[in-house]
């Protein structure tokens, strides 16, 4: 057993590979092994005497950022679409497959027991990351979209009646609009949409007024992936609970970037995707309050979610297993756990603090470029923007802009509707460009982007 611990993955990692350190850990405590390896790199980082920014320090863990595209250095400004993964997360995934890959939950043999331990440990890590009180409140899904669909089909279909109201905003991601449209068609529930105020943020007063006795669910984002605004979830939950409505929080853009405490928010449901928080694709989670999950019928049927199966009926397992049919994405869940460790080691408050600064810098430099229109609220004392900017340049289509930025400058941004077509229609545009940052971006990245943007604008202007 001890011998297996010696054999570490042979691929090169950026953080110092703690080969000598690992030999002192047994495979039983591989959780602490994983923690140690990432904290070792963190310890090495903080030992540096130069006051480099978090971005510069973190970049070392992300090999993918150190490449050239189309002859220029890659400047990755698309983290709101998906984040990059640090070496520790990739290592965790590799280690799973190399040393203890096995199906979980019902196996008897050693590898299966080990895989089950690690899988459930990952669940605990996610629960701890969002401060859930019990890890059984975490349901692993494929991504946040599937998590919302789970709530829609499982909770929605059995709780919504004709005339019931579901409150959304026009700024929601499609994944938090379409499932409710489907469910409202099936149940006769009515969807109501909160529009934006003059600061280009969802109108909270309107939301408050909309909540009535008929409201059964309020499903809103925490941080908008286009407007960079955030909603006061705690207050919204208070208003919703007063009328007996539930609240679902789409935390895809908040969990990766700031401290999210589900007990403090007191939300009934919360969803997030792993791939936006330095974890692999193919896994996400739903947080649901225990009593709610207990009352919900299954979503997908199959193995793992059953208690007993007969030919004419079956009985179902307790949550979270009830909602996890089939073999889960075991390695991915474990890697998500490693991502939670990595982020926690840096510290979410520190990440958030760094990003607030970067967000201000991005907004200010982008706003200084002529003919640029940034969507969402202006940053101020009371308004903090997320570290992303959706914008349009007068007379230049965002797709042309993004194409040129990529081709000539290696700058990766996103153009299109960012899965928020209703929002773009409301704003009166067809598409926008979006630059989004994460803690591994630096001020230099923003500078490169602005220089490239100015070059692009002048290039297209020369053809007018």
């Amino acid at each position, binding site marked *: 057993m001890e011998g297996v611990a010696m054999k570490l993955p042979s691929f090169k990692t950026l953080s110092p590979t703690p080969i000598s350190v690992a030999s002192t850990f047994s495979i039983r405590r591989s959780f602490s092994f994983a923690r140690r390896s990432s904290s070792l790199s963190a310890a090495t980082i903080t030992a540096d005497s130069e006051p480099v920014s978090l971005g510069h320090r973190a970049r070392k863990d992300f090999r993918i950022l150190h490449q050239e595209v189309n002859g220029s250095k890659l400047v990755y400004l698309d983290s709101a679409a998906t984040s990059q993964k640090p070496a520790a997360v990739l290592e965790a995934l590799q280690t799973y497959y190399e040393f203890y890959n096995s199906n979980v939950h019902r196996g008897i043999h050693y590898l299966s027991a080990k895989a089950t331990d690690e899988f459930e440990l990952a669940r605990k890590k996610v629960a701890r990351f969002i401060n859930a009180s019990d890890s059984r409140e975490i349901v692993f899904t494929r991504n946040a979209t599937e998590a919302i669909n789970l709530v829609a089909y499982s909770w929605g279909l059995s709780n919504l009646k004709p005339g019931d109201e579901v409150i959304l905003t026009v700024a929601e991601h499609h994944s938090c609009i379409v499932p409710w449209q489907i469910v409202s068609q099936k149940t006769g529930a009515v969807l109501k949409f909160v529009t934006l105020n003059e600061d280009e943020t969802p109108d909270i007063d309107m939301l408050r007024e909309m909540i009535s006795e008929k409201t059964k669910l309020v499903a809103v984002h925490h941080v908008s992936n286009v407007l960079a605004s955030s909603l006061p979830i705690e207050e919204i939950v208070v208003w919703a609970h007063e009328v007996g409505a539930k609240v679902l929080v789409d935390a895809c853009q908040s969990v990766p970037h700031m401290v999210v405490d589900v007990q403090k928010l007191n939300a009934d449901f919360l969803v997030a995707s792993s791939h936006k928080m330095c974890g692999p694709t193919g896994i996400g989670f739903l947080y649901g309050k225990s009593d709610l999950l207990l009352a919900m019928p299954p979503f997908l049927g199959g193995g793992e979610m059953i208690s007993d199966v007969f030919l004419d009926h079956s009985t179902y397992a307790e949550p979270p297993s009830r909602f996890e049919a089939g073999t889960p994405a075991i390695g991915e869940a474990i890697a998500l756990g490693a991502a939670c460790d990595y982020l926690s080691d840096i510290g979410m408050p520190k990440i958030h603090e760094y990003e607030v600064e970067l967000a201000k810098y991005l907004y200010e430099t982008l706003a200084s470029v002529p003919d640029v229109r940034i969507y969402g609220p202006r940053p101020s004392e009371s308004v903090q923007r997320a570290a992303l900017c959706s914008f349009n340049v007068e007379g*230049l*289509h965002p*797709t*042309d802009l993004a*194409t040129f930025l*990529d*081709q000539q400058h290696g700058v990766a941004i996103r*153009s299109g509707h960012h899965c928020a077509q209703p929002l773009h229609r409301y704003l009166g545009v*067809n598409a926008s460009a979006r630059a989004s940052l994460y803690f591994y971006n630096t001020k230099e990245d923003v500078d490169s982007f602005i220089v490239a943007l100015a070059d692009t604008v002048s290039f*297209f202007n020369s053809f007018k």
Partner: protein
Amino acid sequence: MNSSSLNVLASPPLISTLTPTLKAFHRINFSSKLSKRIRCMHDPSINLNFGSRSNPKHDFPVSLATAFVEAPLGTTTTTSADKLHLLVSEFRSLTEPIDRVKRLLSYATALAPLDDSARVPANRVTGCTTQVWLEIKVDELGRMRFKADSDSEISKGFCSCLIWILDGAKPEEVMGVSGEDLSEMNVGVHGKVQSRVNTWHNVLMSMQKRTMALVGDADVEHREGDRSEPHPHNLLFDYVNGRSYVESSSKVDRDYSISLLPLGYDFTI
């Protein structure tokens, strides 16, 4: 017509790529007049207006398309396939991506304007991340006439090229252009696999689908019976996701035909 203005066509890549493709033309009704003109291309002093009664005053340095966009469609014997190959060669000779973008943008300025009345949802080309409107008519000689516009300059450039190739073509010529032919001209789309941002493909598919609808199955089938080339209805197969030929040409009320899978990608195992 000075020789410097013909530098686009006289560049070595164009000539070398044309020779092999001439062999590919043997199955197409290749008029002898055209072969004479190809030979003449080696001689920079000869006028390069392929059969159309275009205005010799037009400047070549801007692009091939400018010379032809305003040309009245007379008795041209240049097929769309020929024009396509010319355009492909022209783009192939531009090795720097920025030169391709510049060329596309200059083609965009040459695009004939589209009436506001044509900017209706029925004319929208679906599946593009930019807005593209395509107006299509059949003229009194049974040829397809196209007009297009877009809110993106690069997309306008694509449309301008496609229209230069296909405006005034016979319906079966329109059907005969395949997506792979266009992959050479990809600007900003990496590799051969076309992604959802590929406007070329979407506009071409739209042109072909609507040509089918306007002209009607019977006519096109009859005319295509003579050709021994791969049946162009395969293109419609791909576009409408494997539905049968008969079904695909009938009017479809609900358009489920947008696919986010790479267009033109070979999914067969």
